């Protein structure tokens, strides 16, 4: 069994808005093993990005605030670190790539300058060393003629290449954990396939752990070993990837998988649609957040919020109903 390198417990994050306090993350606990790829799945507003930003201390305060929980990394709690301390971790040991590679890169600085910055800052390299290493990194992520292209500006790169630059930058200090927040959502499918292939290859070469945040259950199926499904700021299901797709158990997971048309479907069926909308949580819910959209919902679901309970080895679900039988889970 590989060691756990990141252990998050009871994380809660809120945002103060003029309309009230929004409870974005409501007690999320998960861990990440060495060298593992963890998929985090959910729709917009389910708290998947906020969870990761909270762990890295990247929630702007105000309006946001992490009000509870711990995130143990290498024996230390990331949430208790000072700004200066966590800055040593961010980008060096844990790095993150974002959805939109255009807005994540500074348009008025060359790609080279942006790649060299973390190398000089975290690894104390000289300008010359950093420049050489930057060229190596660019060619590692498959950009031809790397030395010349260091002098280019972000607008001279295509969307797929910009995302490669972001990956090169994230990997520049050989992090132990790479957090990827919907890195392929803005890209075309053929480019998405290139990026997924690249991350798989680099993961093997460098032996790092990856957290891949996405709303696309197809992407996760090809990439992750373990999957967390989030809804309304809670983890509602967690399982090994094969188990989750063979045996989806939470009504929301079942609905999500059913609402996807499949490329390999044998015949055409009507799509299963989950009626209603995801919640906006002005209060920390004391009922199951999915109950208003759930076709299995029963009395208890409206009164108590279920906790994550094991239903099979390494498979945990937060639901009062046994969706196989439609009866309460004993």
């Amino acid at each position, binding site marked *: 069994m590989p060691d756990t390198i990141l252990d998050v417990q009871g994380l809660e994050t809120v945002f103060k808005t003029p309309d009230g306090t929004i409870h974005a993350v409501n007690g999320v606990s998960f861990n990440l093993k060495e060298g593992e790829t963890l998929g985090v799945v959910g*729709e*917009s507003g389910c708290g998947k990005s906020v969870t990761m930003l909270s762990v890295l201390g990247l929630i702007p305060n105000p309006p946001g605030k992490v009000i509870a929980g711990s995130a143990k990394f290498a024996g230390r709690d990331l949430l208790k670190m000072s700004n200066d301390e966590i800055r040593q971790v961010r980008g060096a040991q844990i790095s993150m790539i974002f959805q939109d590679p255009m807005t994540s890169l500074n348009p008025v600085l060359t790609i080279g300058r942006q790649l060299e910055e973390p190398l000089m800052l975290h690894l104390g390299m000289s300008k010359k060393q950093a420049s050489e290493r930057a060229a190596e990194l660019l060619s590692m992520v498959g950009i031809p003629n790397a030395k010349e292209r260091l002098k280019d500006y972000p607008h001279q790169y*295509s969307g*797929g*290449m910009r995302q490669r630059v972001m990956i090169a930058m994230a990997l520049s200090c050989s992090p132990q954990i790479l957090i990827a927040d919907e890195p392929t959502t803005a890209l*075309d*499918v*053929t*480019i*998405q*396939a*290139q990026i*997924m*292939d690249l991350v798989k290859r680099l993961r093997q070469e460098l032996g790092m752990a990856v957290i891949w945040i996405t*709303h*696309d*259950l*197809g*992407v*996760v*199926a*090809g990439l992750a070993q373990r999957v967390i499904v989030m809804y309304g700021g809670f983890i509602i299901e967690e399982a090994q*990837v*094969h188990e989750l*797709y*063979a045996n989806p158990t939470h009504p929301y997971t079942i*609905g*999500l*998988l059913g*609402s*996807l*048309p*499949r*490329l*390999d*479907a044998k015949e*055409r069926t*009507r*799509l*299963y*649609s*989950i*009626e209603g*909308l*995801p919640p906006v949580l002005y209060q920390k819910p004391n009922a199951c957040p999915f109950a208003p959209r759930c076709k299995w919902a029963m009395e208890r679901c409206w009164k108590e919020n279920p906790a994550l309970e094991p239903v099979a080895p390494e498979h945990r679900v937060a639901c009062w109903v046994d969706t196989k039988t439609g009866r309460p889970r004993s």
Partner: protein
Amino acid sequence: MNANNEVLLRVEDLKMHFPIYRGVFQRQVGAVRAVDGVTFDVYRGETLGLVGESGCGKSTTGRTILQLYKPTAGNVYFEGKNLVKLKGEEMRQMRRKMQMIFQDPYASLNPRMTVGQLVGEPLMVHNVASGAEIAERVAHLLELVNLNPAFASRYPHEFSGGQRQRIGVARALALNPSFIICDEPISALDVSIQAQVVNLLEDLQEQFNLTYLFIAHDLSMVRHISKRVAVMYLGVFVELADRDELYANPLHPYTQALLSAVPIPDPIADAKRKRTILEGDVPSPANPPSGCRFRTRCPIAQPQCAESRPEFREIQPGHFVACHLVN
């Protein structure tokens, strides 16, 4: 779905080139060949899916068909009339029959108009209803798209993405069109909401015998909703076939690569597939490669591909493909 073979829309060698101007005198120095000669038919009552990567010209094709852009060359026949030649009042009358649903429900609805005004606007512009009649029609249209008619006095910002897209659908339906171009109507929506909108579009098609041109980049969704599917690359059609035929037996190397790049939400099936990963990016449509447009990324390209442009020909009944190497 209606299986008759009445051609509702015929597109012939349609071209849309956007000029590029440079210099002090704004001389034209080139053109972006967004759509560069596409020919196809759409049958009444069917859904034709149009897929391709961003920048391949699929949205421009849709807009040029509706004469929202003035085409550079080519003809568009709708119910036998050539739209390119129509002017003024005649064109206005035709517009009633052809509508469009846009990608971004946040940008395509005027934030200063109420839902009632938005949905009622087409009725007013075309003088088909007035006063209380409009309100009645609007209420009926909102019901059709499963929205509460009482919402007519609200503004778009009060609605979620999926609800806004329903407003867009109601607006498109207002004039009883026979043909609707859906330009990526679900790309901006969450997964669970996408299914709601797609199911709605299917129900409405059955109810009103609508014909759709469904533009999307999501190949799984296009397969789900379409009867026939066309694949576009850099301004040209590379393949067109019945849905099942295209997905089971793709002939063009681009279609094959595109299909193999789509992730399947099942780890076992996904691991079993053979993947073709294309190298590089789509070239610029301002300066497309000579001969076959796809040859710079094609895994099986031959010297002849650089010399002449492959003809878009019917290889089997109903299966068109543009490739020199397919026999």
